[in-house]
């Protein structure tokens, strides 16, 4: 790990339009957050007034070739006062950057950072000091509790079935699973108008699904035609009457009208509409006989 000590995971230019929000708040400040057991995210801002003051204090020429650095202190088990860190390393950041991902190279430690300028003669001018963070653990602790000790072999068996080998599997898997299923379906489906975005599912279960353009088919080989039939029966009766169609109750609109559609299969079929008045004393019916013959 140690050769990676100062390796940076990189900061990315962000083209996010943050309209309505200030670019920064005029502070001179650095903040760090743990991303995982090995990586810290640092973001900072340095006000121009602050830099001006430094230049007046140290002399303008000192800053001509000074480099902007994040100095990373290992503060594990110490009350950090700026000079008693276990060790430190510097990460050189570009002068126009305002955030950086830093690989700290060692697990299970506490960290604090400074943002500042490193002058050509090796002097570090601190601009701001961050909060302190204690990283998420990595690996099973070697510390045991006598009262709660278990035989080593038994503990190892327990660890194994506790899933120590599959850390990082998560509910996120479900979204991956959903996406894979969708991609599989898309990959084997014919061109169609299906685009299947359900809003909850796109939020909860599948990341970055965008309906994909199907590859253009060779038309001469895949010429196709589809046709099918439905039948729509509509009409009206007294608004308070009750109506059945093929024996099934049909809801009437407020004005007594109705419209029902059926899939129309091949063959002959009868559609009997029957209306009964609200008091049950009067009855009318109409029957359509329909024949479909596909050729």
């Amino acid at each position: 790990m140690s050769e990676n000590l100062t390796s940076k995971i990189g900061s990315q230019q962000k083209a996010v339009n943050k309209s309505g929000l200030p670019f920064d708040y005029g502070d001179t400040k650095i903040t760090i957050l743990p991303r995982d057991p090995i990586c810290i995210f640092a973001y900072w801002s340095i006000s121009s007034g602050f830099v001006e003051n430094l230049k007046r204090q140290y002399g303008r020429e000192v800053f001509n070739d000074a480099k902007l650095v994040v100095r990373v202190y290992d503060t594990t088990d110490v009350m950090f006062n700026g000079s008693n860190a276990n060790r430190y390393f510097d990460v050189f950041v570009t002068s126009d950057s305002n955030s950086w991902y830093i690989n700290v190279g060692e697990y299970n430690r506490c960290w604090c950072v400074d943002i500042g300028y490193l002058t050509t003669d090796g002097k570090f001018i601190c601009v701001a000091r961050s909060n302190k963070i204690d990283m998420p653990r990595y690996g099973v602790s070697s510390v045991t509790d006598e009262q709660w000790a278990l035989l080593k072999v038994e503990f190892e068996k327990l660890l194994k079935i506790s899933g120590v080998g599959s850390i990082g599997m998560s509910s996120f898997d479900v979204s991956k699973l959903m996406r894979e299923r969708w991609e599989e379906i898309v990959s084997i489906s014919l061109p169609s108008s299906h685009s299947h975005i359900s809003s909850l599912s796109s939020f909860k279960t599948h990341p970055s699904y965008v309906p994909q353009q199907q590859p253009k088919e060779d038309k001469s080989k895949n010429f196709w035609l589809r046709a099918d039939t439905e039948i729509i029966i509509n009409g009206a009766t007294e608004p308070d009457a009750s109506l059945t169609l093929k024996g099934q109750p049909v809801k009437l609109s407020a004005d007594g009208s109705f419209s029902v559609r059926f899939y129309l299969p091949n063959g002959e079929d009868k559609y009997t509409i029957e209306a009964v008045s609200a008091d049950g004393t009067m009855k009318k019916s109409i029957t359509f006989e329909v024949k479909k013959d596909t050729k």
Partner: protein
Amino acid sequence: MENKGYWCFQLHAHLPFVRHPDYPDFLEEDWLYEAITETYIPLLSVFENFVYDNIDFALTMTITPSLANMLADPLLQSRYYAKLNKLIELSEKEVLRTLNLPQYHQAALMYEQKFKNCKYIWEKYHGNILNGFKKLQDEGKIEIITCCATHGFLPLMTNETAQRAQIKIAVKDYEKHFGRSPKGIWLAECAYTYGVEKFLKEEGIRFFFMESHGILYATPRPKYGVFAPVYCPNGVAAFSRDMETAHQVWSADSGYPGDPDYREFYRDLAYDLDYDYIRPYLHSDGVRRNIGVKYCRITGKVPLNEKQPYNPQWADNKARMHAENFVFNRTKQIEYLNGLMHKEPLVVSMYDAELFGHWWFEGPNFINYIFRTIHNTKSCFKPITPIQYLDMFPTNQVCQPSASSWGDKGYFEVWLNPKNDWIYKHLHKAADRMVEIASENRNAQGIKQRALNQAARELVLAQSSDWAFIMTTGTMVEYAEKRTKEHVYNFTVLYNQIKNNNVDEGFLSNLEYKNNIFPEIDYKVYIKE
């Protein structure tokens, strides 16, 4: 049979607060409406039937404060009711249309019955299904737990007072909806970081859930792995997830929900039917989007147009078989663990609630058969809630758990990466400023008090972990960015007005009307101690 162990089933029900009274029809509100029809009501219905049939069951369920606020909101309730009635109208038409399509007719009848059952339950609780869940809790059947107020991601907050406020606001809100204090909490995204147990203890919360490695990497090493809870040094208990049960349900190869007899999620009626016929059931823009009526089964690895008709009876049989298999596997697992541990193990299975019903259509029925199987077969383990467990086994190992989450890779990267890291500068500043103005105005009255309360609402809404999550997953990023910016912007305007003693009442009133989460919020939770 002799009891050999315990099984704790935890469902996390959550949606971010999405409510747009200024638009008659808003796409993202569908998250809630779909989840009510497909998940929340079906689950409630399953639980109520357990009570009716005298089936022993015990389960734990988060209803997050943001979800509870939406479920209790009259505007969203009336919008849902209108949507549900439209679905019922469509399902009735479909029953007729499919009379000549016997292969789809059973599915059409099923949907009609399902939607009408939703309506029955909805009306039974006068549009507030929270009362259904509350009733089950009052009867001692389920344990409802709370969550961070707006699903705020605690490990990436730098201001302790703001972390604590996420808990305090949540607890107050829980008391309002459920008539007692919460005993447990689901930390948003199962994300634990050092020290948050202090805030839990202050509020009387006795336990929280963790991802497996949060306990496995604890110091000292946990004697029983994930199969017993541990106490944080301050006495709050942490329960962690068993991976085997997680995989059994969700694994790509062997997971249950991909069975060919289960309903195909991706073949929706909205795309199959004639446009004029389906148009009245789409959003006002008339774009075809899923409406949640689907007549096909997964079938196998076939194109969408070769999906076979759904057979409700086959699917029901499979749900029962899978539930029996799940119970059988728990029996084997618990017997094995019992031999290894020389005590009763506790297996904790936790899932997003919305995955049951919304994605895995048969999921609620699977849960139904699990508890019925356990009850009827007199199995060697018992379902239990964390509180029941702690009351029975008050002696547990004391460990310092590791910071962790249940997100991809197990830590915080889903919520902190180049797609979303720009938000933290603003969120941290707003939190610091909220503490500043609250501490400067310890006894604000009148319009200033209202402005401080609304500033607190805007801050917590901006802190919702869902926005960072969506930015990472890449779907509907624009909405998530807009929400983040809008709430930070609203907060900042209020902050400046409060600082300058010139609160604009029109601006404030409009925000109170639009972003009305936590009507009883008290900004004083942000006063620095």
